[in-house]
């Protein structure tokens, strides 16, 4: 059964190929059927494979499969080969199931778009690359998937290509992530040259065997990999692309920019945890970046008007949590949060999609309101997602995963009170901005009629995801860590320093933060909106509002120190200044020719004078030299 592993990425790729080559013959239904069907098959295969894996685990809880040798040069021989273990199993399950749901949703959402065939082709391609990424047995293949998802992200952000702004957002996403990718490539060169392989498992073994903790090479390799992860996961300082990425169709945001691709960095760090363990400083850096990102993004989310941008900043913030977890060594907690986040963020985006579509492409929350009556299903599912995101205690999956991260941030050997405090503040912020969004969108005064209502294909995924967002957390309830135990086949357990009582106490604090945040949101945006306005109108409020709204000014700085110099340089050199050397030479030669031509006067006496001069020179040479 495990031998069918390759089918999991194969189906989406095949779907892509069919869609790309199929041409117009496929029709509206055909495209959707192929698009969703191929991912469905893939999800089915994942489920079947998971069952098989759980029922009869392969030796060493891992299975690898080599399709063919990719390139073999001397000792460098990465294969097109897949590796399945607990970690990748969880990943493919989440990815394929969530993707499938989103594809179903898309078949409704995109049914009227003339480019739907292209849309499904890109989506399938994306899923294929994403599955390749998580299944890759070596870093080169992982890199293939890594770049592939980046590409698809680009294609899908710019899906509505007729608007130049979308193209700009798409390019920004690809280029910024490529900065990280370049660093990651360098990491690969380093690892191969020092350890002689890029096969991940062997690499981790060799690294642990050959390198001491804190050795320069380990630090360099880990730092470079981290840079790659930062780019793809939109963490500080490479986070700027994600808010713009919302230019793509909403299902794309749900799938790529919330549930799957952006967490690839988390996966990468978890996958190469041995390396990060060898570089404690880098690991600390991971935690710090995570903490900083979650705060910064939280503040930015607080002031956005566009519903999708709120979600985008929220995503950055939530991935910050995952990084925080990774940084403190809570590998499984990070994966757990990845999973719950995939559920509730996908749900939120899809819900937002319904809202936006219903209001005729309206993104501004301040022009929404009172939708809970008009879109009841969307409201309730959205509320479930929002609750999960705000980590509403006990009944949401988000609570369990976030609580675990906060606890680990405190209790881990490498954790600290600061990291915990940052996480807690983030949680508080999260519930404020989440419910600000809910209140602005679904409560208050209704502003006009809505357009289309979602069909069944859009509603079913919402419900399914809502269920997962709420119930998905029970795989890892405190005291019953099913997921962690399973993941510990792949990921090392964290060294805990703390008692169960303390954990309960910390849980209470987190719950309090979440609830107080919700209340504050209720107070400011529903009960007394004038307070919020007054706050925003005050001088520091205005300043902060603008600063946060612009994402802390990163774009502004990058624009000035990188983009503008580059374009200026390019335009200054447009005509290839080096060519001046050669045109100069040509001009000189022509000029010399013309000058010499002046000596050709046509006058015989002058020519004779030339001979005389020649004779004089010759004689002079003969005599004196």
């Amino acid at each position, binding site marked *: 059964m495990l031998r069918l592993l390759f089918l999991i990425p194969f189906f989406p790729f095949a779907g892509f190929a069919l869609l790309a080559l199929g041409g117009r013959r496929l029709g509206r239904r055909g495209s959707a059927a192929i698009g969703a069907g191929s991912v469905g098959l893939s999800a089915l295969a994942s489920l079947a494979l998971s069952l098989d894996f759980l029922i009869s685990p392969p030796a060493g809880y891992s299975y690898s499969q080599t399709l063919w040798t990719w390139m073999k040069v001397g000792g460098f021989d990465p294969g097109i080969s897949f590796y399945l273990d607990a970690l990748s199993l969880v990943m493919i399950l989440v990815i394929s199931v969530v993707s499938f749901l989103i594809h179903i949703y898309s078949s409704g959402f995109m049914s009227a778009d003339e480019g739907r065939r292209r849309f499904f082709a890109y989506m399938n391609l994306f899923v294929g690359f994403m599955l390749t990424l998580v299944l890759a047995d070596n870093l080169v293949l992982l890199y293939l998937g890594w770049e592939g998802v980046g590409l698809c992200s680009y294609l899908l952000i710019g899906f509505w290509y007729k608007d130049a702004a979308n193209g700009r957002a798409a390019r920004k996403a690809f280029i910024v992530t490529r900065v990280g990718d370049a660093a990651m490539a360098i990491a690969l060169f380093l690892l191969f040259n020092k350890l002689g392989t890029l096969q991940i498992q062997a690499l981790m073994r060799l690294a642990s065997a050959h390198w001491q903790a804190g050795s320069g090479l380990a630090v360099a390799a880990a730092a470079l990999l981290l840079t790659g992860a930062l780019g793809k996961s939109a963490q500080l300082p490479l986070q700027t692309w994600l808010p713009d990425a919302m230019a793509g169709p909403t299902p794309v945001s749900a799938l790529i920019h919330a549930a799957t691709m952006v967490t690839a960095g988390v996966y990468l760090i978890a996958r190469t945890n041995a390396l990060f363990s060898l570089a404690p400083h880098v690991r600390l850096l991971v935690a710090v970046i995570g903490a900083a990102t979650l705060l910064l993004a939280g503040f930015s989310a607080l002031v956005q008007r566009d519903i999708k941008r709120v979600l985008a900043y929220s995503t950055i913030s939530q991935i910050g949590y995952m990084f925080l977890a990774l940084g403190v060594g809570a590998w499984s907690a990070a994966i757990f949060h990845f999973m719950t986040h995939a559920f509730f963020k996908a749900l939120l985006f899809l819900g937002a999609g319904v809202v936006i579509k219903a209001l005729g492409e309206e993104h501004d929350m301040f022009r929404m309101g009172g939708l809970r009556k008009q879109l009841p299903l969307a409201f309730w599912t959205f509320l479930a997602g929002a609750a999960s995101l705000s980590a509403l205690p006990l009944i949401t999956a988000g609570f369990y995963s976030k609580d675990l991260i906060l606890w680990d941030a405190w209790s881990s050997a490498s954790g600290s009170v600061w990291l915990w405090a940052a996480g807690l503040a983030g949680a508080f912020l999260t519930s404020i901005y989440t419910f600000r969004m809910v209140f602005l969108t679904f409560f208050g005064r209704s502003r006009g009629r809505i357009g289309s209502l979602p069909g069944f294909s859009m509603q079913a995924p919402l419900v399914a995801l809502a269920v997962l967002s709420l119930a998905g957390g029970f795989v890892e309830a405190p005291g019953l860590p099913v997921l962690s135990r399973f993941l510990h086949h792949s990921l090392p357990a964290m060294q805990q320093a703390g008692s169960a009582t303390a954990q309960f106490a910390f849980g209470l604090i987190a719950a309090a933060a979440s609830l107080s945040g919700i209340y504050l949101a209720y107070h400011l945006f529903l009960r007394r909106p004038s307070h919020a306005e007054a706050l925003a109108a005050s001088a520091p409020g205005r300043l902060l509002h603008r600063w946060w709204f612009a994402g802390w000014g990163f774009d502004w700085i990058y624009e000035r120190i990188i983009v503008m110099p580059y374009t200026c340089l390019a335009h200054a050199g447009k005509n290839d200044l080096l060519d001046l050397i050669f045109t100069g030479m040509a001009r000189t*030669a022509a000029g010399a020719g013309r000058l010499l*031509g002046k000596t*050709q006067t046509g006058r015989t006496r002058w020519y004779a004078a030339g001979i005389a001069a020649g004779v004089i*020179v010759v004689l002079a*040479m003969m005599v004196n030299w």
Partner: protein
Amino acid sequence: MSGQDFISLLPLTVLAATVVLIMLAVSVYRSHILVLLITLAGLTAAAAMLPLAAGSGPRRVTSLLVVDGYALFYTGVILAATFVVAVFSFVYLRKQQGQQEELYLLLLLAALGAAVMAASSHFASLFLGLELLSSSLFILIAYPRGRLNIEAGVKYLILASVSTSVLLFGMAFIYDQTGTMQFSRMAALADANAGVLFTTGLGLLAVGLGFKLALVPFHMWTADVYQGAPAPVTAFVATVSKVGVFALALRFFSQVGIRPQAHLFLMFALIAIASMLAGNLLALTQDNVKRILAYSSIAHLGYLLVAFLASGPLAITAVTFYLSAYTATTLGAFGVVGMTPCRGREADAVEDYRGLFWRRPWLAAIFAAMLFSLAGIPLTAGFIGKFYLLDAGVGSSLWLLVFSLVAGSGISLYYYLRLVVVMYMRPRGASSGEATASCPWAGSLMLTALLAVIFWLGVYPAPLIDMIQKTAALK
């Protein structure tokens, strides 16, 4: 003079006899084609005598001439070139009024002069050969007696006479110093007795020969004369006269030896560099095809000097090969110039060649091949020739000269290719469709033959190289 001597002299004698025959024929019955046939027959006969002469081995015939493989090889080249020029002249002159028969007579005399130079081993024969050549050329250049012809003729006459006096003065100095006019005896004395008069004499001699070879700074007449002379005569000036003079210079200076005489060497080196650069630069901005070819010939002679200065057996074969290739190529190029139709005048402006490829593809293709050969592009003789020159230059480590050659060749590409480009451009307007009269078959045949030679030498030069090495090696 023994019987053997007569056999050795047969090629020259036959040539001279043809002159007399033509004179007689003309006095009896004037016919253009008859004279042409006699000329061609005479040249062929003279060429046929070459193996015979070669059979009697290298021979000194009186003190004036030495008939060896070297001389005979060059004589062969001269005869062949004259043959081609004679046919071109016929094609060129056939439509014109007046008496054209003297031209062939003078051509033969000039060829004889060149051949004498190639065989000369004495100042007297050098001088007489040179004068025979130049005097015939004065007339040939001015032959059609148009204004520009006459202008060119006068210029050439005055300047050539001046240079001849310089040459004579140099020879006199050498004679004064050494007491002999024979190259071989002079060479023997040169080392022991290289007084200042002797070296000065060599310098003046070099000036005189340099003028004939159109080397900088004695080059200024070249373009005007090339432009003013009728195309077949230009071809003759560019090939036969250069071949003869260069053959002589090579023989003389390799007997006397240049390399030991540092200042002589330096002088030639400077002349070579100046010629390569000035020739090519001058041609760059030209718009007259004949002038372009004239300036390029200055550069080519400069290239030749590189091998000339390299000296040694390799250099001699290199020079000989290059001269042969250059002769064939230049003849072809001027042949095309002479045959390109252009409203009752010679097609010597670059513009006249616009779109030639679409009007007269064969003619244009031949011209392009000739230009490529001049530029030294593979498949053509010029490539092998240039390679040979570089071979000699590098072999003697004359780096500065070699790099001047390279630089010069680089510059030269521009004007050669410009001509090619013009031929392949679309004709400007429909009016250029004039004179699509077919090329006379004799001319076409000759051009095709030259093309074949160019390609043959460019692809499989081994036989010619072999022959040069066997026969034309100077002892």
